[in-house]
């Protein structure tokens, strides 16, 4: 039965587009996540909760206050940055008691645990505020009717998908430019390479860390609002799915590697989509696929596709 689908070029193209737009979302989410890891060497497991809150922020701005899409996007990214910076001050900085470069080597685990605690609080508060029913955007925000490209075998691409693909490319390019061409970006790379050395060079490491969270959080916010626009399904629990996929992408691409996160995101999006589309029983496997990739990657090449060899001990 599945063989006929293999020969259908329209179906293939559709899945390519769907897979890339999914992957773009994963990539935007993972970029912020991996940036924080690269600079601070910690897993911010509250990234997903941030992502979720930003989706609600966008909803509040657009659905409740009736403002248009650009406002919603801005609101989401700004709140993402704000929440992430708040996390830095409340959940992570108190653990760096011995100064910006300090902290025992073994205490990479404490920040992660702290972020788990923060995440639990954030999700519970969202549930208390918004309840568990799904929120939706009104159609005025983004017309759900898709474009149909007859020339490409009737390919259907929705406005949300176009927005996602465009936004993610723009964000990736901007982030790349920022990291490579600005002083702040260079400072971030320095701190990521060595906090101690950066201190010695006179870099205000604490401020750079705050900046990193700002950018990372903004990216989480972007991912949040974009996912919300695509699925039109905003619930306090919406972070859990992307959290685990985000981990898989970040491992796939190499921890701390932004290009790797982008690449990994697209790869995972495509693999997931093609698994559902072409594998018999694929829809049951799609969750497993992300974890299988994660697992295999950790076993074979834990530094990821573009990583730098720091994942294994002697």
């Amino acid at each position: 039965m599945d063989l006929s689908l293999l020969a259908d070029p329209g179906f293939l193209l559709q899945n390519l587009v769907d897979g890339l737009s999914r992957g773009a979302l994963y990539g935007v989410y993972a970029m912020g996540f991996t940036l924080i890891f690269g600079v601070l060497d910690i897993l911010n497991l509250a990234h997903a909760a941030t992502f979720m809150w930003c989706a609600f922020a966008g909803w509040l701005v657009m659905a409740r206050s009736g403002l248009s899409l650009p406002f919603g996007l801005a609101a989401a990214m700004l709140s993402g940055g704000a929440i992430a910076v708040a996390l830095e001050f409340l959940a992570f900085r108190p653990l760096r008691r011995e100064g910006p470069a300090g902290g025992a080597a073994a205490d990479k685990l404490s920040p992660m645990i702290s972020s788990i605690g923060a995440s639990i609080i954030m999700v519970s508060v969202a549930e208390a505020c918004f309840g568990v029913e799904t929120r939706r955007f009104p159609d005025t925000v983004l017309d759900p009717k898709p474009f149909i490209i007859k020339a490409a075998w009737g390919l259907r691409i929705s406005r949300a998908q176009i927005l996602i693909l465009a936004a993610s490319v723009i964000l990736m390019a901007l982030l790349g430019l920022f990291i490579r061409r600005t002083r702040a970006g260079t400072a971030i790379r320095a701190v990521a390479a060595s906090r101690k050395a950066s201190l010695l060079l006179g870099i205000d490491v604490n401020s750079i860390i705050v900046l990193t969270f700002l950018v990372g959080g903004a990216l989480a916010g972007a991912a949040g609002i974009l996912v919300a626009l695509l699925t039109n399904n905003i619930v306090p629990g919406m972070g859990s799915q992307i959290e685990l996929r985000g981990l898989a992408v970040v491992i796939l691409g190499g921890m701390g590697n932004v290009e790797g996160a982008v690449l990994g995101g697209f790869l995972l999006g495509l693999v997931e989509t093609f698994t559902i589309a072409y594998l018999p029983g694929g829809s049951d496997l799609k969750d497993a696929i992300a974890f299988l990739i994660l697992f295999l990657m950790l076993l074979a090449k834990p530094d990821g596709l573009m990583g730098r060899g720091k994942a294994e001990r002697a």
Partner: protein
Amino acid sequence: MLIKKSIFAATALAAALAAAAAPAAAPLPPVIKIGVVETLTGDNSAYGISIRKGIELAAQEIVASKLLGSSQLSLVVADDKADKQEGISVYDKLINEDKVSAIIGPTLSSTAFAADPIAQSAGVPVLGTSTTAVGITAMGDYIFRDSLPQAAVIPGTLAAVAAKYKPQKAAILFESDQEYSKSEAEVFKTALAAQSIQLVGTESYNKGDSDFRTQLQKLSARKPDIYIFCSLVGEAIPVLQQAREIGITQPIVGGNGFNSPNILANAKEAAEGLVVGSSWFIDSPVSASKAFVAAFKAKYGSAPDQFASQGYAGLYILATAIKNSLSADRAAIRDALAKIKGLDTTLGTFSFDANRDPVCQSVPLVVKDGKYALFQ
């Protein structure tokens, strides 16, 4: 002597009359406790909250109409959170601590499979008002339901659809990690075969998923004539929306989960033309139903749905059984329930069959202008 005899005779007659009247006048206990276990929080609370409203309205009316004499109905309401563990805990507490005479609920079949066996072994009758999966009443002779099992509704619905649209091919999308939906998909498969409709694709998703596009695209690529969705309310809405978004215009048939107006309100145009089988609909000509709809609107300010109606009917059925059994004894209630035949309820004339499943009509409904209407 004669006076003494007549006094004696009178006294004896009075005593005899008193003795004869005593059983008929023996009152039910002043408070009868019924446990109400529904999903009041979480994704599927739309169903549970609706059912609870129906039950509470019925309770109010039953006490006011003195159906149970002067006894009060005490509803011990508990939230099972759609969680099996919680359901088990709650049943345990209701049975052993609150010592209820019977339980109405739970909302989901999954919870029922976990919790009902406890009631069965403790000898407490359970009346489900929304559990439709295969095998619920098979758990034991204390388990009843007034919600039509999937196998009773789906063939009829499908037959009506087949008659109107004459489909050759069908595709199914269901939720794979949950008993209700899996069971419904199986029942649909059997019904399709019976109608000689070819099943060209079956896809599934998991609880919590929000993007069904690829599964829908895959089904769409096989060009079915009708689509069948087995979902609960949380996913039903995005499924419908995304189906329309990717361009599915063929008729969609929904399972029992689609009987909630919540879906219509949220999915809006995406839900137009959806066909779903139900044991009740709002314009039902049954007189008990009309009265119910009016009372519900008066009390809650909104229209009831199938779930509220089945809840309402359920409490009435239970109360009738209690009245017939003349006691609040669990075993007696169970026996009285089993004997219910030809009772007038909002669902029409209601009886339990030998398997404690309901015998009542089901009608196919279609969504028109954001409301459920009869499908013709």
